[in-house]
């Protein structure tokens, strides 16, 4: 067995594997070094040659960011905004997906393609008029303003429609003959059968909302309403970057995505690959 394995390994294979693991190291190193740096004392961070592990485990960076009156606020704002965006847009996507997947009505395809077409329009291109609108309704520095552009997702509607089309029509028809209303069918048949696609969509939309940067940058001008992504960039000024605090902040910012990744790895990878292929 081991001999066969040995024979199969050519020089070409070895070169490939060396490059492969070099890329694995490049992938992991920034994350590893971020964690290490967040536990180093300021003196050790500025020490040359660079140390690859903290010689003394220092919690000061974490205690500094958690005693910063604003950092917790940024974190909370990120959580609130991302959760609202995820919940509202997943509900909207599920409802619209159901309507597009299981009903026939006039102008259906016009509505659907109008929604689909907006996927390819970059958000950055219409951000100025959108900002003016949100400002005119008093959305600057509010949670409403922060979440408003993301509470509907054209990708989400498309994704849920594709998935709900897989549910057999016969199930829906049978329930209708039994006299079940549309809301009842939605609650008792469609939703339970869409569990996995709903969770994939929730995770994707949450991660997207969490990493949003440009919109929070323009809509929040007071420190109270900054999100974490913005807050992290404020830990630097012209002459000095406190890398210890900054890396501790980055580590905290990565927690939600990492937890999701550990538990739903397969869903996330397949979901993101599929969203790229189909969306």
């Amino acid at each position, binding site marked *: 067995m081991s001999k066969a394995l040995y024979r199969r390994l050519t020089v070409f294979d070895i070169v490939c594997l060396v490059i492969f693991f070099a890329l694995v190291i490049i992938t992991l190193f920034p994350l590893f070094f971020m964690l290490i740096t967040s536990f180093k004392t300021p003196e050790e961070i500025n020490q040359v040659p660079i140390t690859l592990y903290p010689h003394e485990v220092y919690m000061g960076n974490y205690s500094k960011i958690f005693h910063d009156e604003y950092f917790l606020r940024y974190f909370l704002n990120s959580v609130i905004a991302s959760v609202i965006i995820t919940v509202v847009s997943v509900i909207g996507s599920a409802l619209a997906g159901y309507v597009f997947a299981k009903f026939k009505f006039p102008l259906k395809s016009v509505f659907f393609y109008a929604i689909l077409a*907006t996927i390819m329009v970059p958000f950055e291109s219409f951000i100025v008029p959108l900002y003016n609108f949100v400002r005119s309704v008093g959305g600057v520095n509010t949670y409403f303003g922060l979440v408003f552009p993301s509470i509907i997702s054209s990708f989400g509607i498309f994704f849920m429609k594709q998935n709900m089309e897989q549910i057999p029509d016969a199930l829906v028809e049978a329930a209708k003959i039994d006299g079940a209303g549309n809301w009842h069918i939605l609650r008792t048949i469609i939703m339970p059968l869409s569990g996995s696609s709903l969770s994939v969509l929730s995770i994707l939309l949450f991660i997207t909302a969490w990493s949003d940067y440009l919109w929070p940058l323009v809509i929040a001008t007071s420190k109270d309403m900054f999100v974490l992504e913005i807050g992290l960039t404020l830990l630097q000024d012209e002459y000095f970057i406190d890398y210890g605090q900054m890396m501790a902040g980055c580590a905290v910012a990565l927690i939600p995505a990492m937890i999701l990744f550990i538990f739903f790895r397969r869903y996330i990878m397949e979901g993101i690959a599929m969203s790229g292929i189909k969306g």
Partner: protein
Amino acid sequence: MAQRTKLLKMNKQEKVDFGFCMVILIPIMLLFAIIRFIPIIETFVVSFFQKSMIRPGQKFNGIENYIYVLTDPEFLKALQNTFLITVFAMTLSVLGGLFLASVVNSGRRGMKFWQAILFIPVIVSLVPSTLMWKMLFDYNIGVVNQILNVFGVASINWINNGNLVVVPIIVVSVWKEMGYNMMIFYVGLKAISRELYESAALDGVNHWQRLRYITLPQLKPVTLFICVMAMIKFVKVFTQAITMTSGSQSSGNIFKTLVYYIYQQGFSLHSMGRASAAAMILLLIVFVLTAIQMRLDKED
């Protein structure tokens, strides 16, 4: 009689269904109108007007905004910067993704695990990613310079050099994109029929021939698709560039990209007309790329 009641019943059900659809769709279409359709149309219209956020009133001035933008050295510089990032980040992340996918697909033990590891950067948000690389490229305490020193190369001031800062920006873009491309290539590789390889193995072809005559031609549609997707993503590059170069409060050091130009015109200089004209140019670029992609999809 029986037929009539059936018809009435059907009509009623249809009415109920129609009502149900409208109850859901009307609010959603209304939101789409406010959040997407109207702002998109407004961008198009405003791009032909002289309009400012500070002063009320507007004046039609034809294509003057476009002329201003297209002859503005700042815009051309932004376009050039965006192009530079797009070309390098796309090429490297596509090649890297293809390579990783083919090794992962070789079916060696433990590859599923490494694939998951390689995917991590995709879910790490862009600001922390950029800050991590910013530290690695730091002039004094950066690992990159330390490695260069080992090889006898003097430290390089990556971040504060207006020309060199493109290197860390490209690196972080590739770092984040490579795992994603790997995943799509992996799906593409899985789709190539085993029989092709088996019959090739019977003919005794070597690695290079297999790659050259089977894998690459079979992957051509996927590769083109990924390239276009990556281009669409990188034309909109903003966060990496601004995070890598911000900190100095003067905007002089910011590595300006197309989206940064829109942001600056719209939100710092309050010139909505010019911001909209630049936005329309971005939209046009993305549309052309999307059209190419749709065409490729059809050919496929």
